């Protein structure tokens, strides 16, 4: 029984520092191994062009996964993010093509429209599942259909296009070969990391995921924190819609089908526990990279897209099994 050996000023002292760091290190190692593997066995993997490619490809998933991390941390799930993204994109597409606005105003309007749409959908998910204490799985499954239907209705099932040129430029802009949209996603990761680790709000989200009742009995309104988590997830779906529009220069009502599953996969591979309370957004970043690197590398290696899907599936299952043992080990 050693007593009071304290790291004096490190903020880490009050977080799950060591465990999370080890966990992230493990996932990071897995990612490095993958990168190493593909660098050795393919010619083009470690080329600047391909790296830019990968960064572009994982951006939307990463944005969605950041919001998903908040929801999964409180023990929830959001199946609606793919549809909400499409709905937000369609609403923003309508806004950006409104006549009578200059490019700057139109883009600003689109950004506001997309984020508000996402926030509204997320908030509805949160309010309903938290107020009636219903499983978010079902509520967001409902929202998945509602948002998809709404996207088709608003767009009359037509793809919206001809956006301002500046918008298109933003979508394909690079800084030293790094896509600007990826930097946006990275910024989101940093903000989320800060919120989860350095604010009362983040602390209580972890608390709720671990033991909701203890948090409630300590005088906190669990309800609002849950609503907030879902709202954040909706917000990131709105941001993902912007990225999507800027990248492809269209708003399609059938965009984002199945994206929720990739986002959930990134979070889980990143070591966040599906039952909540354990995990980190840095893990999610690594998880999104693993999925992206796998997808890219396996195709470069010459495997079919079908094989790639199968292998990604295997990775998800392996990640969850590993997580099971990690949780068991941790509780000992």
């Amino acid at each position, binding site marked *: 029984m050693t007593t009071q*050996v304290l790291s004096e000023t490190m903020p880490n002292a*009050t*977080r*799950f520092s060591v465990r999370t760091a080890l966990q992230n290190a493990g996932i990071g190692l897995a990612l490095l191994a993958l990168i190493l593997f593909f660098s050795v066995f393919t010619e083009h993997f470690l080329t600047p062009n391909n790296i830019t490619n990968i960064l572009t490809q994982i951006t939307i998933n990463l944005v969605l996964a950041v919001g998903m991390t908040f929801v999964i941390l409180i023990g929830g799930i959001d199946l609606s993010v793919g549809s909400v993204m499409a709905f937000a994109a369609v609403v923003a597409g309508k806004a950006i093509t409104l006549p009578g606005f200059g490019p700057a105003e139109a883009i600003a309007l689109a950004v506001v429209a997309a984020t508000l749409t996402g926030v509204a959908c997320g908030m509805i998910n949160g309010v309903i599942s938290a107020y009636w204490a219903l499983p978010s799985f079902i509520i967001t499954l409902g929202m998945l259909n509602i948002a998809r239907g709404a996207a088709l209705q608003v767009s009359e099932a037509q793809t919206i296009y001809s956006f301002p040129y500046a918008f298109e430029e933003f979508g394909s802009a690079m800084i030293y070969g790094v896509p600007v949209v990826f930097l946006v996603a990275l910024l989101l990761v940093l903000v989320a990391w800060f919120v989860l680790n350095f*604010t*009362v709000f983040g602390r209580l989200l972890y608390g709720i995921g671990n033991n909701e009742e203890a948090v409630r009995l300590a*005088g906190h*309104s669990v309800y609002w924190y849950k609503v907030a988590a879902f709202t954040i997830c909706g917000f990131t779906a709105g941001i993902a819609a912007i990225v999507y529009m800027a990248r492809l220069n269209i708003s399609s009502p059938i965009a984002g089908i199945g994206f929720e599953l990739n986002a959930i996969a990134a979070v889980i591979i990143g070591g966040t526990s599906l039952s909540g309370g354990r995990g980190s957004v840095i893990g999610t970043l690594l998880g999104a990279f693993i999925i992206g690197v796998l997808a890219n590398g396996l195709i470069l290696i010459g495997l079919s897209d079908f094989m790639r899907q199968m292998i990604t599936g295997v990775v998800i299952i392996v990640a969850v099994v590993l997580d099971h043992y990690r949780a068991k080990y941790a*509780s000992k």
Partner: protein
Amino acid sequence: MAAASLAIMPQTTESPAFLSVQGLKKHFGGVKALDGVSFSLLKGEVHALVGENGAGKSTLIKILSGVFPYDSGSISLAGEEYRPANPHVAKELGVQVVHQEFNLLDHLSIAENISVERMPTTRLGLLDRQEMNRRARLALDAVGLTDVDVKAPVSSLGIAHRQLVEISRALQSKSRILILDEPTATLTERETRRLFDIIESIRADGVTIVFVSHHLEEVFAICDRVTVFRNGISIGTDRISETTPDGVVRKMVGRQLAATANEADPKRTPGEVALRLDAICTQANPKDKGVSFDLRYGEIVGIAGLVGAGRTEILRGIFGVDPLRSGRILQAGTEIRFAGPRDAIAAGIGFVTEDRKDEGLILDMPIAANMSLANMRAISRTGLLQFSEENRRTREGGARLKLKYGKISDAVSSLSGGNQQKVVLAKWLGRNPKVLLLDEPTRGVDVGAKAEIYAILKDLARDGVALLVVSSEMPELMTLADRILVLAEHEIQGELTRPEFSEENILKLAYGQVRQAGGQTQ
């Protein structure tokens, strides 16, 4: 312990034991749940098992019904070794249990529930609904529920009727031993009498009945013999005709009637009324008569009573966790209403809950995070965590309670039970509460830490904090409290002042032995 094993030699004057338990032991981790239990059941008798909470009755029942295996000792049933691998085997061998908590499937019909273990089928292997309903009808008639429709869902029944359905289900299979765990806890007097009639008729068929009850008058009304348990040991078996309720209570308490220091703490002087409870009725309280008492600053009031007496519910009601059905709470003369724990905390109240794993702590989170959970404002500025302040407070709180830990970033789950409990205390002490509610404050805590926690609580009272302590451990209440309220069936049965403190007095009130005398003691 030697005395215990002597007391249970099979009575040679009677017919040979039908079920005989010898030196039964059962450990859960380091906790001895049963530490040498021996007794026997005779064919066709009604045998009572009594003892305080945690004396080992429930564990014994679970072993007999095949839920847990036993570590050592022996059980024989009708001359053969009895070691059921699972509840199904136990049932096959004719040992049936009607559990205290209901095992009914709410959304299925009464008939389906009654037949759930063995559904009748037609020749085609399909469910024979007619036969099922017919059987259920017979079963319900047998327990006197002639006016209940067997096709109604169980969820439409009141609690007492559910209990009877449960009993009728147990009677479906041919049982040789029927164990009734607190069967009357939810029954009214009329239904209890009906149950006793049923027990008589089953007994007449040669079935042995084990009757677990907290109500000694019931035990004396229908049982032939009674075995007393204390701390996982069987103390002895008596014929009902040869003992008295007082004699049974004395056995439950044991000889260790520790000479408790019955003088009050001179440094403690109860001050103003902190909380006045006026006819508080909790949701769990079936009656309209509520609980009223005053809690003063600088005093420790203990609440004693058996499990199910409504103790925890009162604390939860005060703290605003569960809404009150009726009654008022007054603070400084004005009525207060708490919509939830947040309001109660704002009013200076803290609540150390009974179950630290489910309600008190976030086990996987660091010590520091747990300590600041109820006091986030003190360790944050505009929503940002101030880690140095949190660390300082955690170290301070830890030192105040002599907490033994490695690093404050360690998960609470790495601490011993006693130290975990100290973290729960520290969480509330960090807010300097004016009123502290404590539910079983030393459950699962080792002796050393217990003494430390007592010292902390006494210090708090000296500093003018009002403490309300619920505990099943009578020595604990007698050590801490200035006065003890004894609760039974959601009513205060009596109030004991320090000179009157004794386990016997508490138990008498808790078991309703002196209720007739108007709650007077001694």
